[in-house]
């Protein structure tokens, strides 16, 4: 008898207690509609997870741990691998143990787990000072999942791990939501679904390539997800759904001060600063001056923002909407990449802006710096005839720390004697730049420390835009013309596949503004030195760069190549622009999809009123609920009422499960008795009696009066039954 039991158990362990969805073919509504869903994975409770599932799960956690490096402190990220490594060792050992017929150990002892837990908590406390904050919170969850994996023994644990991994997958969007990252996350989710599939299917039962069917499962859900994304009423407020970092524009900014040579270095920085899309007319390259900062304070060839810039209320500038719908304006929308710079680029001359606040130097600043990519719009005056009022001009715009030498004074006197008005003065100085052999270069020579301006003006005569802006502005101040330096971007590349302007850090530019005829006017000395820079933009100019200077020999070919690219360079530009357009549309429609954008979309679809949409959604939800109920109700109503002895036995099952014994579905009464005996051998007689009474009631043919007495005794037996706390962990019999 004992041998037979053993035999049975052996058989069970090999293949019996495996579980697979029996309802692989459901004849539900979906089927009738012709929608074929993959088999529903039922929640398995017992079988040992297959090696394939565990390997895949290890890979999934390793991927999360690797991703963890990109956001967390390396020490914490590195620590994540420790439990993982230990688990791999345990898994390998268990695999061998199974081969040798020994008991698998699954996980280290509680002491080791406790040490790991304390270490994890300690690391988070040390490096983050608590669990507040995004990174600390996510590090916490990553460590949690790694430790949970280490601790996992039974299938249910591994399922928990999968659920946490799915949660982490969605957390990735807190840091990056570019196309690439959503592709990555989608792939990851497919991986997790595959693992769930593998876990719920014992190795022997896997009939189809699971990765493929998991991908199909996700693909089935995708249209609904997209529909809901665009149509589901959006909640006002920020979820921290961050914009993409696809063009490695991570937190770059123009400096708040200008030192000659800085912007020249930026010319090699091809990172994207922002994209701008114009509503109707796109201004020509030489019109596209993106104003970011105005520098007033002069510190001997260095410029910085004046400390007394204040917030300004000027009713002539339209705030809020940002766009002026009359003809004299360029109206545009900007999607700015992630940046640490609180100053926003707006096209000169500013007339309307939607975001930030206006300062007295006509610069728009955010209250806090814009760490997220953001979208805003603005308007620029096409006629260049608007500017701030006169009362803003004072001595500050004439102060210089650098003083002219005698040679410079002679030059200044010459100009003074030749010109009658400030405008004429400015033109004289620009003419001087044009007539003399000044050159434009990315590698400006080193200047004298004491008199950098004179050294540049008389000796080297070779510099980048900031040299010219700085020199020109200082000279104008010496000539008693109020002047300031403006830093921003000039030009930008037109993306022909998306018809928007892409402005990169290499487009950074500096120019001057002079107070002439009662308003601030833009004067760009660079235009006098290197018209190509302004006419064609930095992109074209870089084609002429031969490593040392912008060579004139290259000019013709470079410009031809830039304006009419052919062959490889055309294909490359096309690909670059297409990809850029894709990520622009992504940022515009997905990342920055807000209540307003939704409204816009719905209006264009003819679902103008928000209320209509909400009603539609509510109706849809009600409809789905009714369909679901119609599906479920008949079978629920048709189900057979449970017999009294069954209901009594359910009470017993509940009592047992509450004490931590897992009752598998498909268990018979005797299976349940067996698991009780395993836990508490002293109660063998008691439980066997209950089971035999139950069996007599349910399966034997007995007379009605005997049935009544048996029912009574079953009732009292079950109510008397209390599971004694037995051995905590089930040890093996062999």
């Amino acid at each position, binding site marked *: 008898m004992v041998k*037979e039991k053993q035999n049975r158990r052996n058989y069970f362990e090999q293949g019996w207690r*495996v*579980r*697979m969805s*029996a309802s*692989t*073919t459901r004849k539900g509504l979906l089927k009738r509609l012709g929608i074929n869903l993959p088999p529903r994975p039922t929640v398995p409770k017992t079988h040992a997870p297959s090696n394939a599932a565990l390997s895949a799960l290890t890979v999934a956690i390793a991927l999360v741990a690797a991703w963890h490096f990109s956001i967390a402190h390396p020490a914490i990220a590195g620590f994540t691998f420790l439990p993982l490594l230990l688990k791999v060792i345990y898994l390998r050992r268990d695999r061998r143990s199974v081969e040798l017929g020994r008991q698998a150990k699954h996980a280290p002892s509680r002491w080791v787990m406790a040490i790991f837990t304390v270490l994890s908590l300690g690391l988070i406390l040390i490096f983050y000072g608590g669990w507040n904050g995004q990174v600390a919170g996510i590090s916490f969850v990553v460590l949690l999942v790694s430790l949970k994996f280490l601790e996992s023994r039974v299938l249910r644990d591994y399922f928990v791990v999968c659920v946490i991994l799915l949660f982490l997958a969605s957390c990735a969007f807190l840091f990056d939501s570019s196309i690439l990252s959503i592709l990555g996350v989608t792939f990851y989710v497919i991986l997790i679904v595959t693992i769930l599939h593998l876990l719920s299917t014992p190795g022997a039962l896997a009939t189809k390539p699971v990765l493929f069917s998991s991908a199909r499962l996700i693909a089935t859900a995708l249209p609904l997800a997209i529909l809901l994304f665009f149509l589901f009423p959006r909640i006002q407020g920020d979820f921290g759904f961050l914009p993409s970092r696809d063009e490695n524009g991570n937190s770059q900014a123009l400096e708040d001060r200008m030192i000659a040579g800085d912007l020249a270095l930026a010319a090699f920085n091809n990172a994207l600063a922002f994209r701008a899309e114009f509503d109707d007319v796109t201004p020509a390259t030489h019109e596209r001056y993106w104003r970011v900062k105005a520098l007033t304070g002069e510190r001997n060839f260095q410029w910085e923002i004046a400390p007394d810039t204040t917030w300004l209320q000027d009713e002539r500038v339209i705030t809020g909407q940002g766009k002026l719908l009359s003809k004299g304006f360029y109206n545009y929308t900007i999607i700015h990449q992630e940046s640490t710079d609180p100053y926003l680029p707006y096209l000169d001359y500013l007339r309307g802006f939607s975001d930030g606040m206006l300062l007295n130097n006509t610069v728009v600043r955010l209250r806090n710096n814009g760490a997220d990519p953001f979208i805003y719009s603005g308007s620029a005056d096409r006629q260049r005839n608007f500017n701030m009022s006169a009362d803003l001009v004072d001595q500050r715009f004439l102060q210089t720390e650098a003083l002219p030498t005698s040679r410079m004074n002679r030059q200044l006197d010459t100009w003074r004697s030749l010109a009658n008005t400030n405008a004429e003065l400015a033109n004289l100085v620009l003419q001087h730049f044009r007539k003399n052999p000044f050159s434009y270069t990315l590698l400006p020579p080193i200047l004298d420390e004491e008199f950098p301006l004179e050294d540049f003006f008389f000796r080297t005569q070779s510099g980048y835009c900031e040299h010219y802006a700085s020199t020109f502005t200082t000279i104008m101040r010496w000539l008693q013309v109020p002047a300031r330096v403006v830093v921003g971007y000039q030009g930008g590349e037109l993306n022909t596949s998306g018809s928007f302007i892409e402005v990169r850090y290499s487009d950074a530019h500096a120019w001057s503004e002079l107070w002439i005829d009662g308003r601030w006017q833009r004067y760009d000395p660079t235009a006098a030195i290197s018209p190509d820079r302004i006419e064609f933009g930095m992109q074209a100019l870089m084609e002429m760069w031969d490593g040392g200077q912008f060579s004139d020999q290259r000019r013709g070919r470079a410009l031809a190549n830039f304006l009419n690219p052919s062959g490889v360079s055309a294909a490359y530009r096309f690909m670059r622009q297409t990809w850029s357009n894709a990520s622009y549309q992504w940022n515009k429609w997905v990342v920055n999809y807000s209540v307003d954008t939704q409204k816009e979309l719905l209006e264009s679809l003819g679902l103008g009123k928000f209320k209509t949409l909400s009603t539609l959604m509510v109706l849809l939800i009600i409809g789905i609920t009714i369909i679901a109920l119609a599906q479920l109700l008949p079978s629920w109503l048709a189900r057979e009422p449970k017999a009294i002895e069954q209901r009594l036995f359910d009470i017993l099952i509940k009592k047992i499960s509450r004490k931590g014994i897992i009752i598998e579905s498909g268990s018979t009464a005797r299976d349940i008795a067996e698991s009780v005996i395993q836990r508490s051998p002293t109660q063998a007689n008691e439980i066997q009696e209950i089971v035999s009474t139950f069996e007599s009631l349910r399966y*034997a043919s007995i007379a009605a009066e005997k049935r009544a007495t048996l029912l009574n005794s079953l009732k009292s037996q079950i109510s008397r039954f209390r599971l004694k706390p037995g051995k905590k962990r089930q040890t093996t019999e062999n």
Partner: protein
Amino acid sequence: MTSKTASQNTLTSTPVASDLNSVLAGLDAIILGNPFANKLALVCLLAQGHLLIEDIPGVGKTTLSHTLANLLGLPFKRVQFTSDLLPTDVLGVTIYDPDTKRFSFKKGPIFTSVLLADEINRATPKTQSALLQAMEEYEVSIEGRTLSLDKPFFVIATQNPLEQHGTFPLPESQLDRFLIRLSLGYPGEKFEKQLLQGSLDKTSAQALLTPEQLLVHMSNAQQVHCAQPVVDYLWQILEATRRSDFFQTGLSPRAGLQWLRAAKAYAYLEGRDMVIPDDIRLLTPYVAAHRLQTISGKNSAELVSALLQDIPAV
């Protein structure tokens, strides 16, 4: 005290079954190390079904059938199936007797109670089907005459699980004729050593029952009560195999009927007067697996057992 009577009802052996238990004990004494296979063989016989043993040569298939026949006091015959075996070699042949100048029928080996059809898959389909018809109908038709077989009639067929040259695998329709398929396997360390020491006496098997007693047991076994919940349970399993994507076709109603017979026989052998779901479930791999063709080519025993996990059994 009612519980006491209940347990007596279910868990203790009734005297009727005790002589069967001694048969089982006798079987265990000779076929070492695999009491469950022995029990299944007896269950198969009690349920008036035929047994298919799929195993490698030399693990005791012949000994099992021989001993079983001896213990039950039944005549035993053995046919080694080969590719040139003809139906007449199994059923019998009509020959001309020059003395009497008449044709007379020579009964073949099938006219016995326990027939061991060794390596059944070596014979041609023609011969196989001659045997299989007899198994289903308990009679043979030869030259227009129909002859009834002995009662009880019990075929133990063996086949080699390995694919070999010159074999004719039994088609599904014919596998369906076998109530139970099992494999014996190796006896295990302790028993094999005992076997090697030669302390066994195969001839010690004395008849413990008469054929008449056996027939009584067989009819009694089918009187075991099978309540509605058990029938429901069995039906759900059958239905699950039909709805499942794992199998080419589900189980036939005949399979269900035979399964229930086997479950009753098993309960009877256990000394119970009712079938419980455990009986059904226990027999699953032995009764159902050989009747199911998996689509994936995987082990059908595991797949059908997996289905059971979704079927409530309480």
